[in-house]
């Protein structure tokens, strides 16, 4: 009797633990939205990636369609080479535009894809030719100041 | 007469000190042997040596033809399965009740069904007069009661060798007589070999077959009760008649009182 009581309690304990894990996985974490299984990788060159990190989201029209796989620096061309894993279910035209955006003012950076009008689609290993760099706050401010100054010159 | 346990030229000491020097003892099959001696002379230690819990410094201990301290883990466990030991302070498992304490060796070493274990445990508890206390926890027992439970646990598997470390300490005269009879009858009925460590002179002389006296780390005297009673050795006489003055010191070796008091 004593023994079965113990077993029941331990069973309840394990079940609460599993329930907590389930809660963490589905409600807290993005296990459900993140189950991109089969992907193909494409590349993009950026002059400046800002704060983009590996595993950052890749979105098209706000929908997560892939993840940044790796970021390396090309020592010959002096730019960043970003490799992107895109979900196999989604295809994009060859002239797709890749931008680095920031979620909110200080949020994480992600890559936004904007489809172009080409008839052929991007295939694994292709290069996205049209890119726009991350907005760097300092640059923005200095640009703003210069334009102000030149306005005043006139 | 066949020796089940023999201790040959044993020396032992904790750390650097020596406790036993050159001890020889033989314990015969089917006999009750007693080890007597002053407090702290190393009686308990000898039992632990026989059980293989301590390593001798030199000499050897042979149990049933096997040298105890040369065995590996399996070997020593095989020897121990033939042994039962009553610890001086009982050493009951405090997280188990009386019944489960006595059932412990059976559950660990046999595949007996639970109802048979129950019968056996109640039998053993009945033998020590504690069947009524089977549901109690060790913390709810008196000193004498817990030693009797420990005794029941030591004999649970009807071992070939039973070692009792002061089985009579803390018992009233009636329980003492009962336990005496129990030890004797276990010994005779099972053909077990019993080793008793005790201070109780009268009881020991009345029922042991052979007695060893330990003093100064050596066997000071040995023999059957009859031989010892006739002995003229001052040491034996002092012990039997519990005289204060004699070769057995009451005090642990110490510098003179003056040194300790810094006079």
């Amino acid at each position, binding site marked *: 009797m004593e023994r079965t009581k113990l077993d029941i309690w331990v069973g309840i*304990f394990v079940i609460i633990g599993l329930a907590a894990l389930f809660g963490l996985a589905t409600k*807290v974490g993005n296990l459900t939205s993140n189950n991109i299984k089969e992907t193909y990788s494409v590349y993009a060159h950026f002059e400046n990636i800002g704060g983009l990190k590996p595993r950052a989201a890749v979105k098209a029209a706000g929908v997560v369609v892939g993840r940044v796989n790796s970021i390396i620096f090309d020592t010959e061309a002096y730019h960043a080479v970003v490799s992107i894993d895109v979900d196999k279910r989604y295809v994009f035209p060859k002239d797709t535009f890749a931008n680095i955006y920031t979620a909110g003012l200080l949020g994480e950076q992600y890559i936004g894809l904007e489809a172009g009008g080409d008839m052929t689609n991007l295939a694994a290993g292709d290069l996205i030719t049209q890119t726009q760099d991350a907005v760097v706050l300092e640059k923005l401010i200095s640009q703003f100041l210069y334009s102000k100054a030149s306005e005043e010159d006139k | 007469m066949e020796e089940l346990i023999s201790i040959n030229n044993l020396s032992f000491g904790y750390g650097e000190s020596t406790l036993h020097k050159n001890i020889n003892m033989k314990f015969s099959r089917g006999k009750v042997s007693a080890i007597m001696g002053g407090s702290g002379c190393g009686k308990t230690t000898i039992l632990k040596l026989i059980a293989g819990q301590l390593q001798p410094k030199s000499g050897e201990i042979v149990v049933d033809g096997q040298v105890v301290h040369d065995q590996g883990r399996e070997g020593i466990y095989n020897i*121990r399965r033939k042994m039962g030991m009553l610890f001086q302070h009982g050493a009951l498992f405090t997280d188990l009740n009386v019944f489960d304490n006595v059932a412990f060796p059976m559950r660990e070493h046999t595949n007996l069904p639970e109802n048979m274990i129950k019968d056996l445990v109640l039998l053993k508890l009945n033998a020590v007069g504690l069947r009524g206390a089977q549901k109690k926890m060790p913390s709810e027992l008196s000193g004498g009661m817990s030693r009797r439970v420990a005794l029941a646990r030591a004999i649970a598997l009807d071992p070939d060798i039973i070692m009792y470390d002061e089985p009579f300490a803390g018992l009233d005269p009636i329980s003492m007589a009962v336990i005496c009879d129990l030890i004797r009858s276990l010994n005779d009925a099972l053909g077990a070999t019993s080793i008793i460590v005790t201070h109780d002179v009268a009881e020991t002389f009345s029922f042991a077959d052979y007695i060893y006296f330990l003093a100064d780390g050596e066997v000071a005297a040995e023999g059957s009760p009859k031989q010892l009673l006739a002995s003229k050795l001052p040491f034996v006489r002092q012990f039997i008649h519990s005289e204060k003055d004699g070769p057995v010191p009451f005090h642990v070796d110490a510098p003179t009182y003056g040194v300790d008091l810094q006079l």
Partner: protein
Amino acid sequence: MNNLLNIIAGLGSSFRSKMIRLGAGTRLFFLIIIYSADSFKRIGLTIREIYFTGVLSLVIIVVSAFFVGMVLGLQGYYTLEKYGSSEAIGVLVALALVRELGPVVTALLFAGRAGTAITAEIGLMKATEQLSAMEVMAVSPIARIIAPRFWAGMISMPILATIFSMVGILGGYFIAVLVIGVDEGAFWSQMQANVDFSNDIVDGAIKSIVFGFACTIIALFEGFDAPPTAEGVSRATTRTVVISSLAVLGLDFILTSFMFV
């Protein structure tokens, strides 16, 4: 000069004795692994210990977790509010709990509640010759006493840490959404967008497994190694708390620098 030598000698010998204890602890670990097969044959023993280390720690874990979550909710809200991003409160609470506070606070509570109980119990069993008695009955105390407690600790800790994280998040939810009135949808969706299962949650679980190992083996070793006296056992119990806590915080730093940087 002589003083300096004495200090160095003292340091050396204390270092040496610490190393000896570390070695003895490692030895105990290998013995546990060797004897585990024996003890798994009687799985009931381990289940019993899970009851004592895990189930009985549940209340303290749940209560502490809820309060920690509420404090995180409050503090986080007032800080994020200044930057106008109070919706990010969910992310803050969840990441803080899943990555750090869940495993670490659980381990500290575990060391205080279950670790001390293990040390004191084993130390007393040793002091009252129960372990010796078991040895003489040809039952290995490692298989019968130590190994079940080890596995129970290893199993309980990740479960407790998971529960801690989840309950803490609910505590944060309670304060942020129900009391302060942050938008519920934003709370959960921001959290989901920024807490990654394989990175954050799994890494937190790995931490709690490592902490479980450290706390349990320290508690077992201290009990097993305690001098068989009342004083020895009480000092061993204190040491369990101190060493486990330091080990958890140190290991946490090392693991964090591997995992999240």
